[in-house]
């Protein structure tokens, strides 16, 4: 694989994605939610900063997932459906470079969008820190612009990279609609994968235990990337945990991309 080719494809995906109206709508709506969290905070005495932190992180996570899914499925499946892939495949490009470049391009798009959302969110929190009276600030569990909250933003990014990898994987063999449904279903199921691990306590039946055990390892453990509660309450997130979650996300994404390349390299474009 040529890294240079992957880089060119990734930059083209980024250029195409940042002009997508879907992206503008989603980012615009996310910024609106973050902005209006300030107003919601105003009507909840004492809890204002916590509400802004909660809403901001939730908006980044949810709208990030929508961006990853709606733009991610277009990476391969829409390109196959609209046949724009034909001209691309005729160029001196390996199919593996194409998949890797598309994945990298969308991860870059997500990173930039997340950075914009986080900057606006910190701006709103900074405004709170300026206007709130000192008596209110004493009740806060952590400073309004606590830099440790960036850990939560970073882990949302790792989670979204896994969602992009899922969208890429499904779009190598399914149509845009099915890819979106599969990706969203696995994203939701992934939040409950930890429950599957302890399913044997509830169910004694061994086949069910084996199936749930297998599902636990197959499904992405999305809950692993969720440290929103901890950072909002000013609780520390151990560095080791962040590394483990990063390695888990990277390994899961890599496995999905390898599987995507395997499928995509054998696929007929009818």
């Amino acid at each position, binding site marked *: 694989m040529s890294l240079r080719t992957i880089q060119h494809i990734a930059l083209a995906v980024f250029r195409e994605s940042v002009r997508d109206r879907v992206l503008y709508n989603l980012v615009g709506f996310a910024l609106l939610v973050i902005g209006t969290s300030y107003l919601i905070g105003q009507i909840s005495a004492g809890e204002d900063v916590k509400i802004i932190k909660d809403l901001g992180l939730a908006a980044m996570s949810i709208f990030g997932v929508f961006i990853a899914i709606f733009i991610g499925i277009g990476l391969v499946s829409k390109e196959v459906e609209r046949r724009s892939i034909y001209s*691309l495949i005729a160029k001196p490009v390996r199919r593996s470079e194409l998949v890797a470049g598309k994945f990298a391009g969308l991860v870059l798009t997500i990173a930039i969008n997340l950075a914009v959302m986080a900057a606006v969110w910190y701006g709103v929190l900074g405004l709170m820190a300026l206007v709130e009276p000192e008596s209110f600030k004493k009740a806060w569990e952590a400073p309004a612009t606590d830099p440790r909250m960036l850990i939560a933003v970073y882990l949302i990014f790792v989670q979204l990279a896994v969602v992009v990898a899922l969208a890429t994987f499904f779009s190598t063999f399914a149509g845009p609609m099915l890819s979106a449904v599969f990706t969203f279903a696995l994203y939701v199921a992934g939040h409950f994968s930890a429950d599957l691990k302890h399913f044997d306590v509830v169910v004694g039946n061994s086949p069910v235990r084996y199936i749930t055990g297998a599902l636990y390892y197959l499904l992405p453990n999305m809950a692993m990337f969720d440290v929103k509660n901890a950072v909002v309450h000013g609780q520390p997130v151990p560095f080791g945990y962040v590394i483990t979650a990063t390695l888990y996300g990277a390994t899961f994404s890599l496995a999905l991309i390898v599987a995507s390349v395997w499928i995509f390299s054998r696929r007929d474009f009818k």
Partner: protein
Amino acid sequence: MAPAIDIEGLTKDYKVGFWRPRPYRALDGLTLQVTPGEVFGFLGPNGAGKTTTLKLLLQLVFPTAGRAEILGRPVGDLEARRRIGYLPENPYFYDNLSAEELLQYFGSLFGYSSSDRRARASRLLDRVGLGAERRMQLRKYSKGMIQRVGIAQALLNDPEVLFLDEPMSGLDPLGRRDIRALILELRDRGTTVFFSSHILSDAEALCSRVAIVAGGRLATMGRLAEMAGYELRGWEVVVTGLGADAAARLAARGIRATAVSEGRYALELPKDARPESVVSDLAASGASLVSVAPLHTTLEEIFVQHVAKTSSARQGAL
């Protein structure tokens, strides 16, 4: 001389049906060679296997059997792809990129430097008549403009072999004239052009050789002039000032004069008639010669004849 395109026994089965998929043979044992520098027409009705063949040559689909080489390298080889261009049928590109950005992006995949990419994009967009719209997003382009972008991207690397799938599709008469001129210009520069079409007049005007496929099989292939059925049928002589006496003399020789416009007559001579003698008789009677043209069996007639034969043979085999 080694062929530019070498296809041997190329076969492709697609699976059709959802619950119980069964194979459908889209291409059946195609064998042909295309010589470097020739314009080769690949003709056939819809569903004949033309696009499947092109997809196999571009490795958009994988063959069930057989092999194909381009410029002496197996299909799909990256080095071969550096030397080919491809215009898909009804091309589609990225809505949010401009034509200039698209060509620069594709140029980067060939490893060109950024100044080279810019120069190539600019030259080609001017060449296909889109110089003024180069910065407009592709979603605002008409179908004909997209077709022109498709042609520009196919020529980006100055290809040695150019594959065109229905290149005239979506173009107005002026656009078609431009593409014909472009294909002839490429031929003069030594580019091998392999184009599929069901517009037979284009093939007749451009191709040194044609292959006709029907029902996934090769029906016939060769130089148009040497192709079975492509023979001289007679002569057409167009004259003005044809007097009643001269018309009567012609009628006596079995030559009928048909009025084609005000004072202009077309005479259809049998193939064994000598047009020179008719022309000199007419000149003596005061008529003026406008044109003399040989009448060949049209490619359309050959096409219909071979397609019908191949289709009935295939039905018989089933």
